[in-house]
């Protein structure tokens, strides 16, 4: 059974200065959990993409970071939430090249490829929460008897 070790931190995402804090915080948290350099870089880059989405499309919001454990595996879960307009067509938003704003249209789709687990929950008019999880080393194997996602 996967166990959340409690919320580590909540960070506001209100300006591009906050993006810098988000990147630094995620980098340090991942390093503490024993993420390798490449895994750190992937997760921080994903966090940067998602935090920018929260800022640009969601009108600001917050990041909640949580340490998670599964057996011996240690991971970091990042939840980006906003109370913005929401995403009407999720499939389209996840497709490469799609963008309604600035950027290369790689934000959501790109971030999804950089993490082990990716979930998005969006209600038009209410807001959007994107939750990603990455694990230090190998992610817990799917199909494992103790696996409960």
């Amino acid at each position, binding site marked *: 059974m996967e166990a959340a070790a409690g919320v580590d931190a909540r960070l506001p995402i209100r300006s591009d200065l906050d993006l810098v804090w988000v990147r630094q915080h995620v980098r340090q948290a991942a390093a503490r959990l024993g993420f390798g350099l*490449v895994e750190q870089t992937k997760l921080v880059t994903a966090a940067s993409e998602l935090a920018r989405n929260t800022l640009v499309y969601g009108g600001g919001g917050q990041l909640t970071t949580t340490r998670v454990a599964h057996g*011996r595996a240690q991971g970091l879960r990042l939840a980006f939430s906003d109370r913005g307009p929401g995403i009407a067509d999720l499939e389209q938003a996840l497709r490469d090249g799609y963008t309604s704003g600035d950027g290369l249209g790689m934000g959501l789709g790109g971030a999804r490829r950089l993490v082990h687990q990716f979930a998005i929950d969006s209600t038009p008019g209410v807001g959007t929460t994107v939750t990603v999880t990455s694990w230090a*080393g*190998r992610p817990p194997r799917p199909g494992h008897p103790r696996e409960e996602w």
Partner: protein
Amino acid sequence: MPEHEAEARQGSPAREVGVFLRRRREQIAQRWADEPLFRAVFTVSRDEAVEAGRTVADALAEVATAERVVDPEAAGFTLVREQLARMAASRARAGLGTAQVSREVDALRPPVVDLLVADLADAPAGRLRECESALTVLLGTLRLVVLETALSEGEALIDRQRLQLLEVATPVIKLWDGIVAVPLIGTLDSARSQVVMETLLEAVVDQQARYAILDITGVPTVDSLVAQHLMKTVAAARLMGAECVVSGIRPAIAQTIVHLGLDLGTVVTRASLADALAHALHRLGADIVHASSGGAGSR
């Protein structure tokens, strides 16, 4: 020069290394006995350490003579597996991590290389380099075997060691100033492909190598995920300002790639590691010239 040595000179570098290991068995064992790995395991008697060194040297000689320097399953290693397991276990009990054991095994290399260089002082530079490379790969495989045996030491260590095994199985060789190569042997799965990519790109930075050669001659099959990893490696190398050449794509693999509908069009490929090296040298402005024919380039 005894007859079998004369033969070795014409034989493969691996065979010549085998002959060398037999010839220098005693000196090698003596030097190894003073290295931390043997000293720490055989604390009581130096003679025991020397004897253990002889056994390992014999095993390596057998593996080299059988031309299986890259094969951790080679028959020669089975002779010493139990002994290596004891040594690895002893080091693990002493609280050493895999990385430290790996370093200690690595420390066995320089004394042997020194002897080899001394022995081949009169050989052509290219021959010496080939032999040195074979010896390096052989000792890398030894390291792999030692770490493999250490793996049985406890489930808690396995994940970490597995990754390190992958790194050990990914020897990056500097072939020339500005040219590095990874000769890949055995099955490539997704995790190993990832390690290969990271190791090769790190070497590109460390050596400031403009050419990185991925030799997959020893890879029996490639699935689509692995082929994608290869292409990602090529793309990442390009972003760093290096060119990645893939060599040794066997016909079966080429067919797989075609079947999978993958486009290798943007990837520089060469039939063999030698061809890839020649390509990189040529691009570096250093062509290989046959001395006898007075200037005809090799390509």
